[in-house]
């Protein structure tokens, strides 16, 4: 059955900001789908609030709405665009839930929109755990036994029935939030109580545990003709109990017999049929007891997923692309396999290599958080490695992770074994150390339940990490068919083999055209996210347009950059010097681009240059000039630009002395880490000593940077282009939060909403001066702080910054592409740059923080970046754009109700202004005694409420009781378990917007006041970039 001609216009929903559990994989999948549907001649309408995605580039859809993924805005888009169909299976849980809501509330029917890819019933059968179990049982499959509980007594009764341990799953929380594993009766009370509280309907599902069984995933695809293929099997090395997203996983599965595997395959097919996913891909998760052959079905996701992205990268079978074709009527047999060209998509890939996926965690940024791994996901990114053997892949994955520091592992056996009792983020480091200390496979199997096959491989790896890397490096291709057919898509990985007839170049089919190697950004992590992948993808497009071959090197399976369609040749490799040099050796490129992948490739600039590799763009010396504090300080002094006073100290005593000369408050940080890691504001010698002791920043005489902390400063971020002779300002962003909140965590506005023309002129001059002074060829990002009339330079990064995609979306000027052209040799004058890029609209970027995933962490913003993603709001005016951004970030600002305010003394005046404004539009104001007194003095009516110490009913009771709709809380002193901490924790747990800065609160108040019932009008990026933003309608 070929293409459906009864459809013309198709609406696609993205997945919104990057959050834990929903990351770049949905951009990868979405881009594939958009491309396919456009190719097929459909009109594509896209809604996604995440500006850092490739899919929201205006050329990937006919109409692109960077709007909140909420029923209101999407309904507006539907009413305006009148699509024929909605494809909800590409935007993760977010898109699926939204589609479900729109189907259930009648919106889709009202506007004649058909759900394609998965219908409402199938979505329900997969997503509703009860319905799912019934469906499975009816299909003759086994699921873990379970009981629904609404009280602790129910939970106690369930314990009798199910036996311990028990898996607790709160009803209707996203991503298993608030759930966990209860191993003892006490733990059950604790976890069940937490789960009951977390569930909006006060209900938890208690499930029979299959902890320690093997966990397996199968990626299944089905077409309209009921033909089904299994794209890939994925085995979790970590047994059941560690979320698949946090597990080290291997493809294809290695430890099941053919009979066991075929049984899983049969069941996966039964599952997709029973759930009724008519066309598209699904992920089915199983637990298998290899001793007894028992199999239970854990869950199925009727959509593309993190695992399907992994499976696509692991096999070369592009699941999302094919799912999109299936959704519009094609059958599997009608779709050619891109890689072999001669075979159809109705086949199952055969792998002749091993793929290992490793999660990357960010616990170092959340010191109060338990780093134990459990049933809800905690990792923020992942790497994938391909090797000819498990050990090769495992070793490459380890190299790909780029940990700041190796995990701190105990050395004596007892401590090592004790540490393995519960899975933690560092478990493999501990496991390897335990093997080195002489632990046996049996002992470790006993402790971890990891299959002995893996343990034996790890044991060999522990003793001889280079053992499987003997022989010579050669490149092999990912071809979906284990070499049975010739592959045409050049997708490579390095393998170490006994030298054979093929030589080092191996299978690389390098034509005669010059090539440019683009180094990607490795695993997503806090501080280095999808924004950098966005820039790398743009670089690849530009290199291809220039008539050269674009060669991508990266190891992140989630991303668009590692789609084999993005470049001319893809090398799925770790981003270490050695691995990159291996690629350079076979490619012999014209040059290597290190500017787009964030800090990862930038770190390689100097060693690559030393190895004689040509770098395109900004020179190594210019990079060093920007990054070396002393040299950069001298440059600024020479240019006559202000910078905060600073000192570089060595060791504790030196630091305390230097602090005197710089003057408090200070921003202290170790010199050896990046991304604002371990950075803190200190107000006194005691603070400083405590900080140095706590962070270990001064250990071993390491350098510490001390900067005068500029209080109440407005922070500015600028992205600019420079060709070495001339600079061009791409965008100036003003932060909403004051300096001291990391630029990555602060909301920002483009164009600046409260800086005068003189200040902006000064900013432009200084950016130009720095760009030329450094000798930048390509992109430059400069951060400033404004205090009164004075402009201070905070730092300059001679590379693509996190804000490049946002600026490009806001202005319509593709900064990364232009920078790449400059790096390939074109002067700025050839680029046809507009003089002033800002139209008559305002764009706001807001950060999305993972506090709701890390219960126990303090939801406070500071100089250390902690956000995982970002969203964008576009409108005619700042308050509306800000409100959209807030809504998109998950903090829908209330339009009425109760605001709770508690602020530090120095913020009390400002708080009164905010309270007065909100009081005027009908909000009830509640405050703690001190704040209430201050507010009353300023004539603001408010009620006072107890602090925690003053006894119940206190503020936290109020929040937990659902009586508060907005929290404004600026911190009083740091440290856990203060009232502030408890307030923020309670707000985050309940999903109540919690604003922790005065400037943020002002912006929120303005947004609330200017909001209107029907919500702000939605805008298409294509209109915004044409300068055709509709006039606001009179109220």
């Amino acid at each position: 059955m070929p293409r459906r001609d009864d459809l013309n216009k198709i609406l696609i929903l993205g997945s919104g900001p990057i959050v834990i559990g929903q990351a770049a994989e949905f951009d990868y999948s979405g881009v594939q789908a958009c491309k396919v549907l456009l190719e097929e001649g459909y009109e594509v309408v896209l809604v996604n609030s995440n500006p850092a995605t490739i899919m929201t580039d205006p050329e990937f859809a006919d109409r692109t709405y960077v709007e909140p993924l909420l029923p209101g805005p999407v309904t507006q888009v539907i009413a305006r665009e009148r699509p024929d169909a909605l494809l909800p299976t590409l935007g993760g849980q977010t898109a699926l839930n939204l589609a479900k809501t729109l189907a259930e509330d009648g919106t889709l029917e009202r506007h004649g929109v058909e759900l394609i890819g998965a219908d409402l019933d199938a979505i329900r059968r997969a997503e509703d755990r009860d319905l799912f179990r019934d469906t499975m049982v009816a299909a003759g499959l086994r699921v873990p036994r379970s009981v629904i509980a609404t009280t602790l007594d129910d939970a106690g009764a369930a314990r009798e029935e199910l036996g311990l341990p028990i898996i607790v799953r709160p009803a209707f929380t996203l991503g298993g939030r608030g759930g966990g594993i209860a191993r003892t009766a006490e733990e059950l009370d604790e976890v069940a109580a937490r789960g009951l509280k977390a569930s909006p309907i006060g209900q938890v599902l208690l499930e029979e545990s299959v902890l320690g069984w093997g966990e397996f995933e199968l990626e299944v695809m089905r077409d309209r003709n009921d033909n089904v293929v299994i794209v890939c099997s994925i085995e979790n090395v970590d047994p059941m109990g560690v979320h698949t997203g946090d597990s080290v996983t291997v493809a294809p599965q290695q430890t099941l017999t053919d009979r066991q595997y075929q049984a899983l395959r049969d069941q996966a097919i039964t599952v997709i049929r029973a759930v009724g996913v008519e066309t598209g891909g699904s992920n089915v998760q199983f637990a298998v007891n290899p001793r007894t052959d028992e199999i239970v079905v854990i869950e199925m996701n009727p959509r593309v997923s993190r695992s399907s992205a992994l499976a696509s990268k692991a096999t070369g079978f592009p699941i999302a692309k094919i799912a999109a074709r299936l959704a519009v009527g094609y059958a599997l047999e009608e779709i050619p396999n891109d890689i072999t060209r001669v075979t159809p998509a109705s086949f199952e890939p055969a792998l002749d290599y091993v793929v290992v996926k490793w999660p990357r965690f960010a616990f170092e940024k959340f010191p109060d958080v338990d780093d134990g791994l459990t049933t809800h996901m905690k990792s923020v990114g992942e790497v994938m490695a391909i090797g000819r053997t498990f050990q090769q892949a495992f070793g490459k994955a380890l190299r790909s992770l780029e940990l700041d520091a190796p995990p701190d592992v105990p050395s004596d056996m007892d401590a090592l074994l004790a540490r393995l009792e519960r899975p933690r983020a560092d478990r493999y480091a501990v496991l390897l150390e335990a093997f080195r200390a002489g632990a046996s496979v049996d002992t470790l199997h006993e402790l971890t339940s990891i299959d002995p096959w893996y343990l034996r491989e790890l044991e060999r790896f522990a003793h001889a990490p280079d053992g499987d890397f003997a022989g010579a490096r050669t490149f092999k291709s990912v071809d979906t068919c284990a070499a049975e057919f010739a592959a045409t898509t050049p997708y490579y990985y390095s393998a170490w083999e006994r030298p054979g007839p093929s030589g080092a170049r191996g299978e690389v089919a390098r034509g005669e055209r010059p090539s440019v190697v683009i180094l990607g950004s490795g695993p997503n992590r806090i501080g280095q996210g999808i924004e950098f992948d966005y820039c790398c993808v743009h670089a690849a497009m530009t290199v291809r347009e220039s008539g050269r071959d674009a060669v991508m090197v990266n190891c992140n399976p989630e991303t668009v950059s590692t789609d084999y369609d993005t470049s001319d040749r893809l090398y799925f490799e770790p981003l270490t010097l050695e691995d990159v040099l291996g690629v350079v050796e076979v490619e012999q490129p014209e040059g290597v681009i290190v500017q787009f992948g964030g800090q990862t490739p930038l770190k390689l600039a100097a060693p690559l240059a030393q190895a004689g590799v040509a770098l395109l763009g900004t020179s190594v010396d210019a990079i060093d000039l920007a990054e070396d504090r002393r040299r950069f300080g001298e440059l600024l002094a020479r240019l006559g630009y202000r910078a905060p006073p600073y000192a570089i100290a060595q060791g504790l005593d030196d630091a305390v002395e230097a602090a005197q000369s710089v003057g408090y408050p200070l921003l202290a940080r170790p010199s050896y880490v990046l991304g604002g890691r371990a950075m803190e504001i200190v107000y006194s010698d005691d603070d400083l000593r405590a900080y140095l002791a706590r962070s270990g920043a001064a250990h071993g005489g390491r350098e510490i940077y001390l900067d005068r902390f500029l209080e109440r400063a407005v922070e500015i971020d600028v992205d600019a282009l420079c060709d070495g002779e001339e600079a061009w300002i791409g965008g100036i962003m003003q932060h909403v939060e004051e300096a001291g909140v990391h630029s990555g965590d602060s909301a920002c506005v483009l164009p600046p909403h409260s800086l005068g023309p003189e200040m902006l002129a000064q900013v432009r001059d200084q950016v130009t001066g720095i760009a030329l002074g450094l000798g930048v060829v390509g992109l430059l990002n400069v951060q400033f702080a404004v205090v009164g009339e004075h402009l201070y330079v905070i730092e300059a990064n001679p590379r693509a910054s996190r804000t490049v995609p946002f600026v490009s979306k806001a202005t319509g000027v593709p900064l990364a592409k232009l920078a790449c052209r400059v790096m390939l040799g074109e002067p700025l004058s050839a680029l046809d740059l507009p003089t002033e890029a800002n139209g008559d609209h305002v764009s706001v970027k807001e950060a999305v923080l993972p506090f709701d995933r890390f219960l126990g962490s303090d939801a406070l913003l500071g100089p250390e970046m902690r956000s995982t993603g970002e969203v964008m709001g576009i409108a005619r005016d700042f308050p509306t754009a800000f409100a959209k951004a807030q809504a998109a970030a998950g903090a829908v600002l209330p339009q009425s109700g109760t605001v709770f305010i508690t602020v530090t003394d120095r913020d009390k005046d400002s708080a009164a202004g905010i309270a007065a404004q909100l009081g005027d539009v009908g909000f009830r104001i509640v405050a703690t005694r001190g704040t209430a007194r201050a507010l009353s003095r300023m004539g603001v009516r408010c009620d006072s409420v107890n602090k925690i110490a003053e006894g119940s009913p206190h503020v936290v009771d109020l929040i937990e009781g659902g009586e508060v709709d907005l929290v404004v809380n600026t911190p009083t002193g740091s440290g856990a378990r203060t009232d502030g901490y408890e307030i923020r924790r309670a707000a985050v747990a309940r999903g109540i917007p919690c604003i922790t800065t005065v400037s943020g609160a002002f912006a929120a108040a303005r947004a609330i006041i200017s909001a209107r019932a029907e919500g702000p009008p939605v805008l298409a990026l294509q209109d915004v970039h044409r300068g055709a933003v509709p006039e606001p309608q009179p109220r």
Partner: protein
Amino acid sequence: MTAYVLLEDGTRWDGEACAAPGPAVGEIVFTTGMSGYQESMTDPSFAGQLITFTQPHVGNYGASAEAMESDRAHGRAAIMRSAVNREDAAGATAGWLDWLADSGVAAITGVDTRALVRHIRERGAMRGGVFPGALDEGRARELIEAEPPMEGRDLARDVSPGEPIVLDPDAPGPRVVALDTGIKDSIVRNWRERGVRLELHPCGASASALLAREPDAIFLANGPGDPAALDHVVATVRGLVGKVPVYGICLGHLLLCRAVGLETYKLPFGHRGANHPVKDLATGRIDITSQNHGFAVVGPDGEGTIAADEPVRWETDFGVAELSQLNLYDRTVEGLVLRDVPGAAVQYHPEAGPGPHDANHLFDDFLAEIERA
């Protein structure tokens, strides 16, 4: 201990010996299946062949009785990238390498199997051997030369039983008389599970002897070697077609085709694996199939492949034969039905073992036809 693989074209691949040291010579083939190494090794269709496993890790879950497809190993050697001798896997009765050694199978590990497979893909399956490192290459070459090529080889005789074997004489179902050219246990199991009274006869049995068993159907099994070299069996089958329904799998399919007058030819490097899509032209259904064959049937227009997804027809000595199943990978013939006399066959392995179970329904289909007849 080192070992090496030498091909008849002189290319050499080094590795380590890991079971019987060799020399072992025969046709070097590869299988792309990702599980089921022991099933492959014991499949009689691999007789006379050296199996290269494209799945790099082999031996991960040991060896067990339930993975046997016959009473012994038939592959002459295992060529692997990374083999282990795991003994403690659930359900395993021995380590894989110990089992290979006990079975007298030569084995080599540490070989760049992907490069080897690419070589075979480009040059075609050829003779070769696995040799101990100490063995002189010149001597190895002589051993390879001494091995007859696969084309024209009758290997079925070696794997066929000496005496008829009657299974489940009291079973309720029809009597299926199989010509055992090296039948896999999975096929036997599939028939027996369906209540069939199955008999296995030596491949040298005459048509009259088989008809004397009063069969409800004749079943032509899988097996090794070149169907063109099995003229004696083909003649037997010719004597059966039209008299009783005849069904075949794999080699059996090729034999039935030759018996009705169709041609077969050698594929460049065969089909061995668990992922080939096969389309049933009557229902449109696509099964992912288990495959293990080196020869195929020539299409009605004299070509090795079929151009359109249509049930094209052959004029045979027994009336019309119609294409029923098509390989979507390389468009070779995967099955046909005889229109004027009862009979049908498929080239792939509906019994799996190893491989997917998608096509398992084929036994039901055959059985339904037998019961109808």
